[in-house]
């Protein structure tokens, strides 16, 4: 070779790491800057409004007596289904669309990046709960105005915290499934099997097999989350939430994170 060998070091002393808050902002942007992402966000709000609207119509036409909690429970359904999908896609779209190569070359610390992704999904869960609450408040006020019944606000701060916890858990479970499968279609299908088919099987098993009835509350994560919706969680129920959550949230997340941190990014 003709070139003389001279040491050309790269001076990185003046360069700071990409601040964590900036990573979170970029991740939030990435969830809304594609059609798929934007429409998923819009659908969550629109479906929630639609479900509340239908509920309001049914209540008014049947002259039911309801309170704020009834609207809050109705709001849970569309959010509970769609927020985990958002959690899944925040991870898997990087792999399905192969953007992970670019993302990780701009921030080589994968653990920081995954943490930023997780933080951004949690922020979305907070915003979703706030929007859901606002829509429920609107529904309850409309109910009062249209039915002439007394408007009841029977929830407290604890209930709101529980609602947030519920959707944070849903989002995190989706996120965990996303890291585990690193593929949008596979993660969504298996998540839906887990969230719609499995609880039925658990119930059936509990009815048919005696010993299974004893362990079912400890392994059925969906059933364990119900007390959060009721707004009243006993000590044993917290324990059941913890144990079943360990199985369905912590374990998949741990395996998934191990996979993301080690995997070759293709």
């Amino acid at each position, binding site marked *: *070779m*003709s*070139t003389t*060998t*001279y*040491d*050309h*070091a*790269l*001076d*990185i002393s003046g*360069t*700071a*790491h*990409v*601040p964590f808050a*900036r*990573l979170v*902002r*970029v991740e939030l*942007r*990435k969830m809304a*800057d*594609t*059609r*798929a992402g934007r429409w998923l966000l819009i659908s969550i709000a629109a479906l929630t409004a639609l479900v509340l609207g239908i509920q309001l119509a049914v209540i008014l036409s049947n002259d039911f007596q309801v309170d704020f909690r009834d609207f809050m429970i109705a709001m849970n359904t569309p959010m509970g289904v769609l927020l985990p999908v958002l959690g899944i896609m925040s991870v898997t*779209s990087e792999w399905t*669309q*192969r*953007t992970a*190569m*670019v993302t*990780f*070359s*701009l*921030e*080589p*610390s994968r653990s920081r990046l995954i943490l930023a992704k997780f933080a951004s999904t949690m922020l979305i869960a907070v915003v979703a709960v706030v929007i859901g609450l606002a829509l429920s408040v609107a529904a309850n006020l409309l109910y009062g105005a249209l039915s002439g019944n007394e408007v009841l606000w029977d929830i407290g701060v604890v209930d709101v915290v529980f609602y947030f916890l519920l959707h944070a858990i849903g989002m995190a479970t989706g996120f965990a499934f996303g890291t585990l499968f690193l593929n949008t279609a596979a993660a969504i299908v298996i998540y839906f099997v887990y969230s719609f088919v499995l609880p039925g099987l658990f119930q059936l098993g509990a009815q048919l097999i005696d010993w299974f009835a004893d362990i079912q509350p400890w392994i059925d994560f969906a059933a364990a989350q119900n007390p959060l919706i009721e707004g009243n969680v006993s000590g044993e129920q917290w324990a059941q939430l913890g144990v079943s959550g360990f199985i369905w949230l912590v374990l998949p997340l741990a395996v998934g994170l191990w996979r993301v941190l*080690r995997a*070759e*990014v293709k």
Partner: protein
Amino acid sequence: MIKVEGLTRKYGAFTAVDNISFVCQPGTVTGFLGPNGAGKTTTMRVMVGLTPPTGGRVTIGGHLYQDIPNPGLHVGVLLDASAQHAGRTGREILEIGARTMGLPSSRIDEMLEQVSLTPTEARRRLRNYSLGMKQRLGIAHALLGDPSVLILDEPANGLDPAGIRWMRGLLKGYAERGGTVLLSSHLLNEVELIADEMILIGNGRIVAQGNKASLLAGAAAVSTLVTSLDNERLAKALTAEGVTVASAGDGLRVESEPVTVGRAALEHGVVLTDLRHADGALEDLFLELTSDAQREHLVTGATA
């Protein structure tokens, strides 16, 4: 400066990269050449921390890539121009990069202009881009942070001839300003004109490295293309010297160095109109070296 030291990457029993070492100097363009599957991409992926090496290491300016804070400001990377979200617009892809690196939006406009993507094109989604447009966008993305090192995998792939010429000028200028450029290709003629140094890789091993002259010096057979005002007389003179001559198009193909042909022309008073190394000499060498990677053949005089 990029320094590859004893790099090995195995996939089970398959060795994709087998103990390779080379250096890319600042102020030069290094061409990384090899047939498909030779290990170029794997090497470049290890460089930027996407693939962990089985052995050896790569440092950029003395640092492992993962130790460089905000690496986009130091190292521009384009590994696969298609590895971007198909639903994002070109501009949005640059926007995400610029925001991650903490750059102002004005930088995006500068880069779009530099790679000749119009504002209308930048508003289109990536799925509607041709490969050439994706490459331009990818190069814009790599240049966003004004890095001093560029690592580009097959950047000319999909570019039209004008695009290849544009890229050549861009990278030459970049190296002249002190930048370090490593670009890979499986096509020799893409790299030949632009690279100061060439690394030839086949089946995971470096089979030759050096500049064009030193590589050619080591080639077994050199031939020259010559056109003169009196081809017949020149051919006769060369044949008399024992050199093999064949007619080729308007001129002759001579199996020797251009200097031999020039001297013969001078002695016999023949006016030359064209005299050059036969195109393909380097290509023959390239094919010869990479066709059989079992052969541990390092071209003499071309080693580092």
